[in-house]
């Protein structure tokens, strides 16, 4: 197995009294695409948001257990550093509407009060947009508002925004569920492209998408991690009944 980048040890997550995740144990390998699957409400988003500690933003929400990023306990890390290293792309594209495309890409820096020189900015913007395969489409309109773009372009802008922070891991929460099939395909291709430099954890309800793009798949059910394996193995030869039922479409 590849080097592991993220180690999750006995993670529990709560909203108030309700226990949403229970005793998740998982090692995430580096430079791979990891798909998280499971029926609605099983805690995939909660798991994802525990990794970059967005979960604790909700009043009353908390976690127990440990998560290590390269051996470093994320609950002891500086939040700014942690979130630079672990980027996130949301279900609905959320570019900042008061900012231009250019400003959106480097917003991670401006938001944190990190100043960059003009040439640094330009380089970062071009580089990130190229990596998000959006550069060609927007290079002449960098100073227009990002909200004028199509949904798929907006989502790639959000990916560029994450990439500009040079993260180790990018979390995707159903990044294509609000997009049309063509835009979705583009994002999928992009994910495969990004894999060589980043570790990608993606929540998806789309079994084909998981099968097509991911190297590993984790199956969650009722707040528990039921099975984690190479995607091919998990799909062709699931070890657990629930996994088998889910991938054969017997419950959803």
């Amino acid at each position, binding site marked *: 197995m590849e080097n592991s980048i993220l180690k999750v040890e006995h993670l529990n997550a709560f909203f108030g009294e309700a226990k949403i995740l229970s005793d998740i144990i998982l090692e995430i390998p580096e430079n791979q695409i990891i798909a998280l699957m499971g029926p609605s409400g099983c805690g995939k988003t909660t798991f994802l948001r525990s990794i970059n500690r967005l979960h604790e933003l909700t009043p009353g929400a908390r976690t127990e257990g440990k998560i290590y990023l390269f051996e470093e306990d994320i609950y002891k890390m500086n*939040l*700014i550093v942690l979130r630079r290293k672990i980027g996130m792309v949301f279900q609905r594209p*959320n570019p*900042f509407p008061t900012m231009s495309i250019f400003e959106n890409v480097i917003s*991670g820096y*401006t938001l944190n009060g990190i100043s960059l020189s003009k040439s640094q900015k330009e380089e970062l913007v071009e580089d990130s947009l190229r990596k998000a395969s959006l550069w060609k489409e927007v290079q002449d309109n960098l100073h227009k508002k990002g909200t004028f773009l199509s949904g798929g372009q907006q989502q790639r802008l959000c990916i560029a925004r994450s990439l500009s922070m040079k993260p180790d891991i990018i979390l995707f929460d159903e990044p294509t569920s609000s997009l049309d099939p063509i835009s979705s395909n583009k994002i999928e291709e992009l994910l495969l492209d990004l894999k060589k430099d980043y570790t990608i954890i993606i929540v998806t309800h789309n079994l084909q998408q998981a099968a097509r793009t991911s190297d590993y798949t984790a199956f969650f059910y009722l707040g528990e991690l039921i099975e984690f394996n190479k995607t091919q193995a998990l799909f062709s030869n699931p070890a657990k009944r629930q996994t088998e039922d889910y991938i054969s479409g017997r419950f959803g």
Partner: protein
Amino acid sequence: MLFDQKNKTINNREDKKLHKVLLFEKIFQKSLGLTGIILIIILISIFITLTITSIPSIKHLGIKFLYGKAWNPVTDEYGALPFLIGTLLTSLLALIISSPFALSTAIFLGEYYPKGLVSNIFKNIIELLASIPSVVYGFWGIVILVPIVRNLETQLHVLPYGVGILTSSIILAIMIIPYSVSLSRQVISMVPPSLKEGAYSLGATRFEVIKKIIIPHTRSGLFASILLALGRALGETMAVTMLIGNSHYIPKNIFSPGNTMASVIANEFTEATGSVYLSVLIEMGLLLFVVTTLINISGRQIIKRYILH
């Protein structure tokens, strides 16, 4: 055949029932519409009466009413400029004092303590502030605020009136805070959570999210809420009349006594004997009415556009 007939009567009965419901619905709708129309009629007739009763004044003074500085009922000389300036000065000063408070309270309640004991206590106190009668604010101003301002004036070596523009502005500021807080809270609460989360996911702290996401996003909405608060402040009468010092001269500075349009009307309405005098005061009321209405409409328009956006 028989079965069909039975069915028909059932249908008939249901039809009647439905008809009744629809009729009721119609009447209900109509009467709602009617109350709306009545309100509009009242508004228009207020405007018309004010306009008609202002005619003697408009004829007598013309446009000079707006820029004249002298106010002398004995010689039938009426210039409203000192009161226009007094009104603008007190209102703007009140906004300058209240807006930072209102904004920080709104952010505090919206972002730091959206729920729980602290926020409930705060909200209740603010609502309580809104329910205190104007005249009580006036009294409180006379008893507490006037001595404080007088003290300040003594130390600054200006004439220690105690009453005046500044004193009224402070009271006005306190009076409009509940209104501004609730408006700005509404505006701030409309910032989509997904934007805030996007910023947090990039490592932004709460302060930076407020400064770089919430404030830029709500700029026009916050401006509108300030405008609506201004609409309130312009017309506020009782407390201001008690604290402004009722002088007919253009205020020299913020410590001078003065008068607002509303306070002049309240003060002089009972003693306005001549027909022109009365008509002048009514024209002033008309002016106030038009200005506050315009401000309210534009504030609401901005907020509406903001919500749609």
